């Protein structure tokens, strides 16, 4: 087990290193930051001073080594635009993105589970067929367009919900959260639902498949033969057992949700990491782009590592595969 863990860790570190090089080279290939950051009226002396201050005069490999060394110390450069540490900018906006992603996950479970349960218990009823047809739509609908339509209907036409922004926030542990104020929740509803759209469909399908499989199990038949009420069979015997795979998949999807929040945040002007990266790409704010991409790479490698280790604990075959 130790050998397996060690091998996985080394692999993960290698991937991080390769990705850091790719990100660095890739971002370096985007336009010339000098042209963007220094005003065209600046004289030669001012230009040179700015180039030195930003470290843009060093050869490429030296810039990379400096970048790598600093990255290990948690310093991913200063934003050209905000003149603040890039990592700080991202960490400041992380709570907003996390709030959105968690909101979407919770919404997906609250909406998806009951619908999936119903569709699984009564697979032939017209309502179930309607639910399944809608779930296909959930997979096909482009997220950003649905977001626009939500704004149009609920913010512009009906005026029930605010269209953009985060609303009033409360500071807890030095981070700003909006789910504790009624204004914040009103702002959260539409973006969270929009981000949840795909996951709702996923949860409906998983739950339905799980229920249909579990209903045929002997222990469910036995519980019914014992004369338990249908409600008790459904909620205690069936529901509990399908919850495990559904929660696993939704948990694994969490990284994807954070990645996809880029789109939702842009539509609803939600001030999270995703909006920050799109804005930074548009003004070629290199340090912020690098910092964001490195954070995301780290996040995904961690998620994958945790998944691999969990699987190997549950299934020894995964662990032994490499030894043959």
């Amino acid at each position, binding site marked *: 087990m130790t050998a397996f863990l060690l091998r996985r860790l080394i692999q993960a570190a290698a991937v991080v290193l390769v990705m850091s090089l790719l990100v660095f080279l*890739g*971002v370096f*290939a985007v336009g010339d930051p000098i042209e963007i950051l220094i005003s065209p009226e600046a004289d030669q002396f001012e230009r040179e001073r700015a180039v030195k201050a930003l470290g843009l005069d060093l050869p490429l490999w030296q810039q990379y080594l400096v970048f790598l060394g600093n990255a290990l110390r948690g310093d991913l450069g200063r934003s050209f635009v905000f003149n603040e540490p890039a990592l700080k900018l991202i960490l400041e906006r992380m709570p907003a993105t996390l709030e959105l992603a968690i909101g979407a996950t919770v919404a997906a479970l609250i909406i998806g589970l009951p619908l999936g349960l119903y569709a699984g218990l009564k697979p032939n009823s017209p309502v179930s067929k309607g639910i399944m047809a809608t779930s296909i739509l959930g997979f096909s609908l*482009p997220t950003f367009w649905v977001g*626009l339509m939500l704004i*149009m209907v609920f913010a512009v036409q009906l005026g029930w919900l605010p269209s953009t922004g985060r609303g009033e926030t409360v500071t807890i542990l030095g981070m700003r959260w909006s789910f504790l104020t009624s204004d914040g929740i009103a702002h959260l509803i539409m973006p969270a639902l929009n981000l949840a759209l795909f996951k709702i469909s996923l949860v409906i399908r998983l739950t339905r498949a799980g229920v249909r499989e579990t209903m045929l199990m002997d222990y469910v038949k036995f519980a019914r033969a014992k004369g338990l009420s249908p409600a008790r069979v459904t909620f205690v015997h069936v529901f509990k057992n399908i919850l495990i795979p559904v929660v696993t998949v939704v948990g694994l999807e969490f990284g994807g949700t954070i*990645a996809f929040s880029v789109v939702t945040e842009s539509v609803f002007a939600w001030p999270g990491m995703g909006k920050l990266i799109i804005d930074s790409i548009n003004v070629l704010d290199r340090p912020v782009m690098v910092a964001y991409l490195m954070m995301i790479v780290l996040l995904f490698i961690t998620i994958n590592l945790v998944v691999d280790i969990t699987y190997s604990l549950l299934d020894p075959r995964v662990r032994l595969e490499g030894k043959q």
Partner: protein
Amino acid sequence: MSTTTIAATPPVPKVETPFQRFVSEFAASRIALFGLVLFLAIVVIAVLAPWIAPQDPYDLAQLDIMDGRMEPGTVGGAGFTYWLGTDDQGRDMLSGIMYGLRISLMVGAGSAIIACLVGASLGMLAAYAGGRTDSLIMRLVDLQLSFPAILAALMILAFLGKGILNVVFALVIVEWAYYARTVRGSALVERRREYIEAAQCLALPTRRIIFRHLLPNCLPPLIVVGTMQVARAIALEATLSFLGLGVPITEPSLGLLISNGYEYMLSGKYWISFYPGIALLVTIVSINLVGDQLRDVLNPRLKR
């Protein structure tokens, strides 16, 4: 499909060729047939756009800025009815959508074809060569699939900048792994069949075995994945263009049209974003309907 007999025995004459059987099985689902007809109609509209569109949205001489942001159904200055309204520059939305479909379909299909060629070749190589080549290619596939498509495409376009070719490139990078995994999976199974052994006994060149014997038998799952991936590519391109990272303003795809309408949405001018979105939705749903049925028809597991 894989019912191909050993090369030496003459094929038994059948009443129904495999292709006819495939067609009749596909047509068994009304909704899939509807999807196919819809998709073909969209393709025809996109291809014929320069001839059937009421207006050429790129020809500035035909545009009248006074007709900007008109509601659907209004008659413009030149006595011209804008059935789906106009955008901020007085462009007819209907024509804009027809031209936008061209770009969306072109990017979607183009990237899917290139990704299929790249992915299928690598997948085939992995399955046939095995060993280190196989594990190297499959590691790359795993790495690619562990990152969400939107993020990988975002990274690449952040580096390369806007442009149709850049978008196609990004989509190919994001998609090839699906094809590679699919082809490798089916090629590993087919490789062990007798007809491959027979071909090898005949001392046929490896190239011929791969392209004439192995590849045709790996096609069914590839077609299914390919269909679904075209829909995914179109949706992804639209998303990237909406974020301002996709196609340039001079070549507006459906995603960019929707993005253009975003700022007018808050003042209640819904049609600039609404109708291109409907066109996008119909395109994606029609492809998915066809893909769903293809998966059912081409999946041998469901038949036996």
